[in-house]
């Protein structure tokens, strides 16, 4: 056996650099195997625990490899600070997902081993994607990320919404993947290279026929790749799967998709455009900026008047992706660090909000906004994180959301895209219309008064008081239909509320003391060579 391995002429492998991936992949295999054991106690306790251990090992190795940049496996992966920070974001998000799913429906229905194993594989895909510097590993990572997610979305397979979500994601995701792989093939055809850096130098050296950046093959490829990335990052007009899939998927998985998938997708956006295509920044810059502006407007406007919290956060995630693209647009290391900073901020705020939604959803049965009426009095432990999450996503000072937006605007103004900064600010203004509505719903006292306030709030939000979508007040019947927490002793769903509390506390902490985040993000900005 050992002799056989010796005969394979593989590239030299830096096992240290590969260790986060090994932890995730190995962990996934072990989790799958342990999930086969019969005793329910093992499956329901040991499997999540092993998942947490695997994620912990991944986080540990990521921190260990921090500041040791290196290119491994013949330049297929670049284990640098940008990749590691994004890996870290994905792993932390997965950790929160494990805690949120722990006593939920999804892992029971899908099978514990399968659910958590797929989650780990997906994180591994993200790690591959965010470190890839070659179009082959790029595609590999993307598929490794996506396929487990298609299944996870349908994890609650007895629920129609979940099945629909999974199927939709599969079909649309396949279209996206097909677009991407087609585009990658065209770029390879035009340049004859697969490495990002080599593609970049082929572009600058003018080796292409007809000079730099005029080969239709390359350009079409670039357009297809842009669309493929835009899919994963849910950027308009390729975002339409987002609200549907987010609404239907099990809420912990929605939270995972909203934060981790987005982080990985934006990481590859940054890597591809700022390494492979950085020389043509003046060409693609205006395009990405336009897409970003459209995304900001569409996401924010779409979120107005949504009654499902998950759907609203889906649209909000679209808008946030638009904000984060701003850091890609400028093509500077300041832009890279601003996007990475915002990814971290977005992780904290979104997980805080989603965990609170999970806690409420388990009692109320669905994620309708009306179920949140009076939450402040009923369950302040869930209401506060959600409040902080909403205010932070809107960019209120004192939360990390403000710091993130501040840095994005700084990067935009610094990179001569002031107009996009203005769009970003206008988008944030519109977003207050739906974020504050959630806050108001939670803290407004009684059902009777809440109804009038919501009616008064609607015009401020600028939302159409249109037929089916808008909350037409909260009839008392609906309010009283809310199931009381099963036991009044102690906080219901402690692990979920703990996640919400920790992430909300972190977003306030880093909103007041942001310098560690600035330091982290500037490492990421310095990771890509050749940027200013």
């Amino acid at each position: 056996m050992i002799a056989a391995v010796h005969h394979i002429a593989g590239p030299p492998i830096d096992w240290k650099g590969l260790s986060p991936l090994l932890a995730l992949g190995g962990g996934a295999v072990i989790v799958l195997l342990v999930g086969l054991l019969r005793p329910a106690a093992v499956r329901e306790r040991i499997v999540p625990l092993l998942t947490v251990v695997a994620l912990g090992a991944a986080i540990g190795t990521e921190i260990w490899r921090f500041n040791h940049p290196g290119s491994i496996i013949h330049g297929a992966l670049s284990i640098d600070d940008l990749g590691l920070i994004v890996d870290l974001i994905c792993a932390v998000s997965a950790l929160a997902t494990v805690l949120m799913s722990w006593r939920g429906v999804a892992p029971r229905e899908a099978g514990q081993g399968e659910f958590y194993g797929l989650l780990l594989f997906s994180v591994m895909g993200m790690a591959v994607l965010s470190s890839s510097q070659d179009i082959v590993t790029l595609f590999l990572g993307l598929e490794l990320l996506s396929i487990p997610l298609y299944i996870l979305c349908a994890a609650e397979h007895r629920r129609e919404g979940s099945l629909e979500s999974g199927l939709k994601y599969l079909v649309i995701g396949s279209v996206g993947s097909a677009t991407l792989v087609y585009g990658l093939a065209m770029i390879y055809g035009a340049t004859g290279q697969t490495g990002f850096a080599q593609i970049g130098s082929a572009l600058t050296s003018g080796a292409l026929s007809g000079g730099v950046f005029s080969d239709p093959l390359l350009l079409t490829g670039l357009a297809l790749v842009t669309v493929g990335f835009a899919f994963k990052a849910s950027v308009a007009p390729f975002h339409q799967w987002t609200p549907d899939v987010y609404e239907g998927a099990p809420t912990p998985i929605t939270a995972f998709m909203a934060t981790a998938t987005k982080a990985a997708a934006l990481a590859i956006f940054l890597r591809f455009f700022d390494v492979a295509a950085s020389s043509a920044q003046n060409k693609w810059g205006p395009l990405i900026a336009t897409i970003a502006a459209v995304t900001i407007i569409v996401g924010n406007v779409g979120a107005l008047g949504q009654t499902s919290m998950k759907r609203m956060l889906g649209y909000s995630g679209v808008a946030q992706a638009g904000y984060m693209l701003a850091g890609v647009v400028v093509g500077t290391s300041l832009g890279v660090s601003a996007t990475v900073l915002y990814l971290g901020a977005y992780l904290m705020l979104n997980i805080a909000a989603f965990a609170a939604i999970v806690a409420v959803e388990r009692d109320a049965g669905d994620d309708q906004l009306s179920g949140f009426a009076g939450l402040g009095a009923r369950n302040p432990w869930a209401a506060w994180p959600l409040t902080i999450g909403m205010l932070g996503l809107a960019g209120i000072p004192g939360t990390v959301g403000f710091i993130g937006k501040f840095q994005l605007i700084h990067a935009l103004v610094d990179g001569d895209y002031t107009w996009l900064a203005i769009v970003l600010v206008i988008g944030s203004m519109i977003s207050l219309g739906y974020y504050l509505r959630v806050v108001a719903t939670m803290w407004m006292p009684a059902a009777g008064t809440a109804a009038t306030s919501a009616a008064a709030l609607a015009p401020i939000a600028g939302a159409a008081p249109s037929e089916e979508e808008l909350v037409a007040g909260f009839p008392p019947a609906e309010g009283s239909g809310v199931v009381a927490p099963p036991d009044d002793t102690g906080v219901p769903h402690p692990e979920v509320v703990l996640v919400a509390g920790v992430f909300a506390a972190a977003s306030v902490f880093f909103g007041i003391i942001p310098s560690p985040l600035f330091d982290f993000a500037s490492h990421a900005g310095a990771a890509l060579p050749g940027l200013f």
Partner: protein
Amino acid sequence: MSPTAWGWLVLLFPLLGAAVISAGWNRWPARTAGWLGTLAIALSFVCSVGALLSLLGRDPAHREVVSTLWSYAVSSGVDGKLQILVDPISVFMILVVSGVSTLIHLYSVSYMKGDRGFVRYFAYLNYFVLSMLVLVLAGNFILLIVGWAFVGAASYMLISFWYRRSTATGAGIKAFVINVVGDVGLVLGTFFIFRHTGTVQFLQTFSQIHHVFRVDSTDLVAGCLLFLVGAFAKSAQVPLHTWLPDAMEGPTPVSSLIHAATMVTAGVYLIVRLHPLFELAPTAAEVGAIVGCATLLIAGSIGLVVVDIKRVIAYSTMSQIGYMIMGAAAGAYSGALFHLMTHAFFKALLFMAAGSIIGAMAGDQSLDRMSGFRKAMPFTFLCFIVGGLALSGIPPFSGWVSKDDVIGYTFHRGGIYPILGVGGELGALITGMYTFRMIFRAFFGAPSPEAVELQHGHLAHAEVPRNPMTGEEEDTDVGFPGPEHVIAEREWPMKVAMSLLALGALAAGVIQLPGVDHVISTFLSPAFTGSKLFHHDPSTGTAWIGLIVTPIVGLVGIVTAYRLYIAAPGSSKRLQERLAPVHTFLYNKWYFDELIDIVVVRPALLVGRLAESVLERIVIGGGVTGGVTGSVRAVSAGVRRAQTGLLRLYAAAVILGLSAIALYFLIVSS
């Protein structure tokens, strides 16, 4: 420990106090919240003393210490850091603020005991002290602005403390609006300076300005004038003073702490802190001095005719701060800060004594109804006399030395300043008059029914609580003064607080008496090494001329009051009739409220109405809002219509988007 470590602790305790008290707002039994608040501020005072000792242990050349806890946003060219500057000026200020605040907290524990908002009150009060300490310890403009805005907010909350009183909420809003005018001035002023220096830190700014500005550079003068707007609004100087008398709607200890001893002196602190800027912009400094002098005269003259006892003291506060602003702008930094300190003692004392009388009057504040409390309230009377004599600048009380420190400097300074010094002397005359008018009316003469009751051992009770301003019956549901009234004679915490302040008002002057000692100016001098004006003090002999003349002027004022109110009772009425136009003019507070009403409020209202009827309804409502909400609504509907849930339409969108992107690339490349 280093001075800055003490400095951070000074900030920590009020923060903890405010947080702990608010966290348990519905759980604290009896007076626990009050004692906790007092303890927090007392610890803060102890740490201030620690900072003082630690600073004195250092070489005088190294007594300006900066400490940064963390960077908030070092980005876009702004160095925003959480940074404190511990130097003699800030240590002096934290000592005064935390010291006087401790005593006022102690006083409040008794004074507010019947109030239903007891816990809320102490949470607010701790928050106020925190804000004020942030303001004076700030090491850069950003933190200064934060503290500046925080004290404005705290002042608003405490003025409107009895929020079921319409007059109190109105006064709170007025104070807040005028304070925001000042905030805007401060922020804009900072921009003017930052534009040239490229830093927001104080010490770096001061070392930069000589390179980037010349004497009276336009931007520097503009910046300094804007800082003055901030100082005038916070320190209630003409014409931004009208909020201070109304602020007396708050509980009396609040008036004592915020509207006499600490917050309103922030403007003086600002000028002293930014003295290198003002010395390089003498024009702006002169404007400051002139306004200070005008305020001290105008406020003093109004104080002669006002009948509400708290408002008399409020006008007196404005007038005394006028002295400080005049002194700080003229360059009498140690004099201004010294007067700030002694004023904090005797004015806080006067307010506390007034609170005691108001308690005896069951909430009534009118001087017309008070009289003859001398026998009924001997302790309060004694305190009031000590405070009054200190305020009038009679030897050996503290106000005597500190006030003349300012006036004497202006005579010595030359230029326009001696004219302002004459104004200061005139102010001393008025001060004696209004102070003793108040004392003679409240404590002398035939005892009022309440005083007679009290002499028999019964404290007056109001049948129904009434608003002292309007006479309306009060909503007693929440946050009302309470049916229980307290007087200093029966409450030891009040007695302790007042005695200590009385001691300060009596004796604090000796530490800076020319020819005897110069503790204050020696202590402060390391912070003024670059200042030309700081060491420009008059000689001991000259100073003593002032120290003899000014009290004589003050005595003349007291004697005049004596003749009008004691020797020939009723002569004040006759004088009032003879000088009816003057009286009306003063009684209406120089018509400043009306002037502001005509110059600012009415035009603003007119423009507002016009804007409402034309701009708002037609342009904004019809065009902009209608257009914006219409278009947002249309786009929203469009987005939702596109969101059919049908995959084939999503795929179509993908293809359309893709074609657009590919087309774009092909067009830009050709």
